[in-house]
């Protein structure tokens, strides 16, 4: 591995993370089906469908749910091309690779013998692989839809509505906020290292340097947390963070909620074996 490849790969991950946030904001601002619903309905509804995906045993039901997800995506102004690039192709690739051995490893009746009889593809193996791929594709599509159409703030508020403890929600919010700061800082540290180092270092040195960068980031993190703590105190934080509550359900939210739950329920009913 060339001396800079690891650093470059790290930088790619960091910038990707930062970029994700911006994409989400753009889609969330569109006026589409999902965006129009109360965030709590979105969370419950999409989660119910994901649950239905995991509970159904029939691949036909799962595929139906996938099609429903695609329709919802279109109605919510989410580009199918971006879904394909972001979800469908990567999941197909990864899950496909993982599921491939199952074709021959799953016991059952052989249907194909591509390697001349010693490792036959079984019917059960085929079904298992397809089932797994279908499940993962549909589930990830649904959760991605939720994430794309819901700004982080609303996700947090929805969680509060589900009685996730206040402290936890505050920590989720703060962590999210500081991920970007730390990712930026880390990115800057790696960039400067990349531009400053010449020559090839051996593995041990590179490890030490990376650990050092991580260490500096750690120190900064702890220092940051101390400063933030003082800052919170300065504005009156005494131990329990108080926030505004704001959601109100309208008729379309109830309709949406019912629609999701019915769809999920039907899927589970039909899909049970």
């Amino acid at each position, binding site marked *: *591995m060339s001396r800079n490849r*690891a650093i470059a790969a*790290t930088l790619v*991950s960091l910038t*990707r993370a930062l970029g*994700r946030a911006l994409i989400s904001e753009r889609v969330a601002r569109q006026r589409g089906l999902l965006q129009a619903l109360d965030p709590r309905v979105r969370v419950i509804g999409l989660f119910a469908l*994901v649950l239905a995906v*995991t*509970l159904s045993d029939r691949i036909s039901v799962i595929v139906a749910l996938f099609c429903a997800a695609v329709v919802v995506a279109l109605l919510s102004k989410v580009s199918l091309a971006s879904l394909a690039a972001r979800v469908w192709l*990567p999941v197909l*690739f*990864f*899950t496909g690779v*993982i*599921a491939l051995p199952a074709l021959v*490893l*799953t*016991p*059952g009746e052989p249907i194909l013998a591509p390697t001349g009889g010693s*490792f036959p593809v079984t*019917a*059960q193996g085929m079904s*298992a*692989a397809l*089932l*797994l791929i279908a*499940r*993962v594709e*549909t*589930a*990830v599509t649904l959760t*991605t839809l939720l*994430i794309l159409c819901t700004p*982080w703030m609303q996700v947090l508020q929805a969680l509060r509505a589900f009685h996730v*403890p206040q*402290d*936890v929600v505050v*920590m989720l919010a*703060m*962590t*999210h906020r500081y*991920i970007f700061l*730390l*990712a930026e800082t*880390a990115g800057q540290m790696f960039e400067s290292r990349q531009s400053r180092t010449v020559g090839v270092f051996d*593995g041990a040195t590179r490890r*030490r340097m*990376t*650990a050092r960068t*991580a*260490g500096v980031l*750690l*120190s900064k*993190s*702890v220092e940051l*947390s101390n400063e933030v*703590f003082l800052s919170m*105190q300065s504005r009156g934080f005494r*131990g329990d*963070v108080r926030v505004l509550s704001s959601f109100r359900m309208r008729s379309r939210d109830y309709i949406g909620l019912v629609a999701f739950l019915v769809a999920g329920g039907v899927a589970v009913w039909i899909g049970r074996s």
Partner: protein
Amino acid sequence: MHIPDGYLSPSTCAALYAGAALGWYGGLQRIKRTLATRMIPLISVFAAFSFVLMMFNLPLPGGTTGHALGVTIASIVLGPAGSILAISIAIAIQALFFGDGGITTLGANCFNMAIVGSLVAYATYRIVAAGAEITSRRRLLAAGLAGYVATNAAAFLAAVEFGIQPMLFRDASGVPQYAPYALGVAIPAMMIGHLAIAGVAEGIIAAGLVAYLQAADPALLQSTSGLAPGATAACQPSMRHPQRRWWIAIALLLLLTPLGVLTAGTAWGEWSASSFSSAEGRARIAAASQNRPAPPVAPTGLQRLSSLWTSPVPAYAPPVLKSTSFGYFLSGMFGVGLVIMLSLALQAYLQHRRGAGQPG
């Protein structure tokens, strides 16, 4: 090691959510008891740090690269309760905001990595470091070992969770409904990648960070050192009054969860022995452990997988596997439960030795 949606059955997910919830509850209670207000920003920023650390590409001995979780250093600096919360939060944000990792499997991922990972890392660190000076080399060894053991413990749990799926959840014609690989395949597949790569990465980072802190800010290592605190401990959250009750509850849950999951599934004895005689070498690799839908991470995983795919497959199916796959599984769960129990006992012993002499 992050398990996506679709690989685990709903009942497995539910059982692991229950286990995770217990861990979260215990962690929160613990935090409230100590300097709660200060911990909120500390845990948050540590969670953010862990998240960013997960993106670092670490060059490892042998020319590969790996990723660390950060659970070890979190346990060493924050203590197990803080680490449980911090890593869980990092995992939750990965799933809920960045879309990496499943939502039905959030409980499972947190249970494996955040809860069991933190507890095992902490226990190993404390046991191996036992009383050494904060700046001693023994602590580096302890941290490295803790990272290695914790990562593999978490991976083992994940492997077990994968591996029991086909046993418990198949339809009438024998089609596995979720993860399709039995224990005999799942465990070696997962463990190879973690024993060789991910565990090493975590161990190296943990030791490296402890070394850094020994020089730059030893006070951060104080609270989990087991040593009597000096003047520098003033501002750190203290680990007094361990809540043994909830630790015991976790351990018990670990011991009982396998039974709970089993009763939810169908009878397992029907699994035929012939299934294990097929190739063991083709293994689902730890590409699953890096399961991000993004090309930059793919090549390493793919290379590993393709090299194994083409290698000669050993006809490996020891007799013991055929009849004791359940034993594997049980022993895994019990093993982790035992580690927890051990750490509890260790804590009790250390508490007893130190007496009630903790100031503040």
